[in-house]
């Protein structure tokens, strides 16, 4: 394998997808070679191959060598006991499913310790017959399983601030995760209660100390919304809403109300605090956008990404995640020269609607400076905008619902940093 045989597809070192492992180019490995062996030492049988390890256990734990992978949370806020967020370690994760222990969190009054035998789900308001459901009864309903991303509408908001924060993929964008959610189509439960034709909204309320509420339009509620009981096969984690949460695919995370305990059908929205004072975006003319539901078409290079360091010249696998609240990801392009030239990345083919997609493209770093970007296009033709385009469109007065292109600068020392271009 020689350098001459590498197929260059865009400026500053981007290589053809066919150079990815498993794509018919065995020689790429030789370019990427790092000496796994010491120069002189032969390979020895390791110590763990000479003693039996512990046996099976009732509940599995990860390797002690991966315990560095943690959600990143802010400092506790005495003003809002239990309030706050934690962010997924995006740069350390691969594939598209976020482990439940590392799924991002956002709480408005902490995590309630709910006894499922005491928990109730009420449907009332504009229905033929108000109903109350027990957890055990809900477990008997026919369920569906869907893989969907969940993203806080505040994710990536700091990118709209005037100067770029010294941040990582996790600190800047870690309020997005993806899981397989299993539950009951909300439409089945609403049909059982009998929806009054006058009902235009479903107000969902959680059983946390904030009794957090959000209004969901009835057409969404009858479309693809779930009452989710399982997350990646196990009961929904307490921090994700155990014993049940609403799940509104593709929409801003806050509307997927956790610890779901009430669904009230109403003719008007309830105008909760978290859909008026919060999660609304003020424009330059000082009007504010309310009920911005679908999350924008978005992508992010997770490696190399902010605060990483490239420690050798050569070929790297540029990889990241892409998602859209309006469909699936059709295309991800990557640039290594700050957006002057682009090349198509490989997208894993088993992606689903409103779920994370994983993309990859090989890139040769020759020791110079580079600006790595990714740009997603979804199945509806929506293209991820630049930061400048977002700012031109909506100004700087609010930071929710930002889906602009992320730029990672690589300097000649291999350092990677968040930059604006």
């Amino acid at each position: 394998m020689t350098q001459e045989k590498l197929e260059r597809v865009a400026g500053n070192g981007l290589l053809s997808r066919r150079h990815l492992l498993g794509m018919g180019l065995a020689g790429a490995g030789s370019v990427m070679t790092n000496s796994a062996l010491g120069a002189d030492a032969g390979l020895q049988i390791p110590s763990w191959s000479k003693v039996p390890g512990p046996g099976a256990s009732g509940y599995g734990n990860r390797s002690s060598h991966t315990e560095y992978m943690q959600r990143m949370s802010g400092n506790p806020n005495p003003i809002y006991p239990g309030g706050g967020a934690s962010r997924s370690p995006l740069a350390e994760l691969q594939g598209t499913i976020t482990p439940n222990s590392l799924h991002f969190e956002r709480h408005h009054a902490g995590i309630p310790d709910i006894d499922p035998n005491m928990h109730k789900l009420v449907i009332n308001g504009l229905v033929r017959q108000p109903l109350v459901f027990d957890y055990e009864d809900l477990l008997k309903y026919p369920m569906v399983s869907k893989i969907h991303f969940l993203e806080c509408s505040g994710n990536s908001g700091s990118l709209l601030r005037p100067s770029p924060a010294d941040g990582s993929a996790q600190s800047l964008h870690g309020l997005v995760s993806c899981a397989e959610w299993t539950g009951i189509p909300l439409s089945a439960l609403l049909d059982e209660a009998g929806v009054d034709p006058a009902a235009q909204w479903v107000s969902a309320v959680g059983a946390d100390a904030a009794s957090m509420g959000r209004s969901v339009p009835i057409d969404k509620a009858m479309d693809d919304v779930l009452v989710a009981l399982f997350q990646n096969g196990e009961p929904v984690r307490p921090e994700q809403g155990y014993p049940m949460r609403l799940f509104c695919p593709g929409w801003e995370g806050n509307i997927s109300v956790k610890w779901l305990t009430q669904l009230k059908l109403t003719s008007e929205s309830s105008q909760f605090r978290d859909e008026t004072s919060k999660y609304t975006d003020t424009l330059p003319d000082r009007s504010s956008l309310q009920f911005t539901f679908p999350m924008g078409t978005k992508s992010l290079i997770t490696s190399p990404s902010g605060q990483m360091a490239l420690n050798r010249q050569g070929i790297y696998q540029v990889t990241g995640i892409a998602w859209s609240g309006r469909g699936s990801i059709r295309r991800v392009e990557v640039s290594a020269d700050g957006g002057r030239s682009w090349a198509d990345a490989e997208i894993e083919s088993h992606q689903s609607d409103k779920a994370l997609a994983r993309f990859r493209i090989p890139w040769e770093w020759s020791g110079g400076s580079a600006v790595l970007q990714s740009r997603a296009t979804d199945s509806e033709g929506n293209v991820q905008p630049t930061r400048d385009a977002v700012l031109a469109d909506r100004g700087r007065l609010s930071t929710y619902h930002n889906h602009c292109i992320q730029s990672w600068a690589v300097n000649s020392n291999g350092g990677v940093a968040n930059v604006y271009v």
Partner: protein
Amino acid sequence: MSMYKRALLFIFSVTLASIGFVSFAQDTVLKLGSPISEEQLSEFDLIAGPDGAGFPSGSGSAAQGKQVFDTRCAACHALTGEGTSGNTVLVGGDMHSEGSPLRTVGSYWPHASTLFDFIRRAMPADAPKSLTSEEVYQVTAYVLYLNGIVDQNTVINRETLIAIEMPNKDGFIDKSQVR
């Protein structure tokens, strides 16, 4: 198999399929919800909307609310409502000020109902739902008074609260139909 037997089997199958379909539609759709009345939900349902639905009986004025506010709210919101951190400012602000506007109950919130609804369900943050309905009306009145929206003797109840026009009531663009 004779034509006759085939025809008979076909008729039999179609009949079975029809019965099967009806049976599926009527018997296999679970209905495990227990009926409950709105009266039984009167303590449970805390949703108080801009149309006045869901408000409890009761009333209160800012003059009455000051004492509740000073003892239950001021630790975070300060005696004046000017707050002790960014998220706790309740008063002031102007949506048309230079730079990024300070968004408070007075300058930003479009509906007075939201104030009652939020205080009743989520405040005080260290002891949510510990205020009586009367106290929630009183504190609602006091926060509106601190913002210069009502005077200190205005009686706030279900009817007077939803009739209040907040300064930024026309400041929002509803994007809920954008998919």
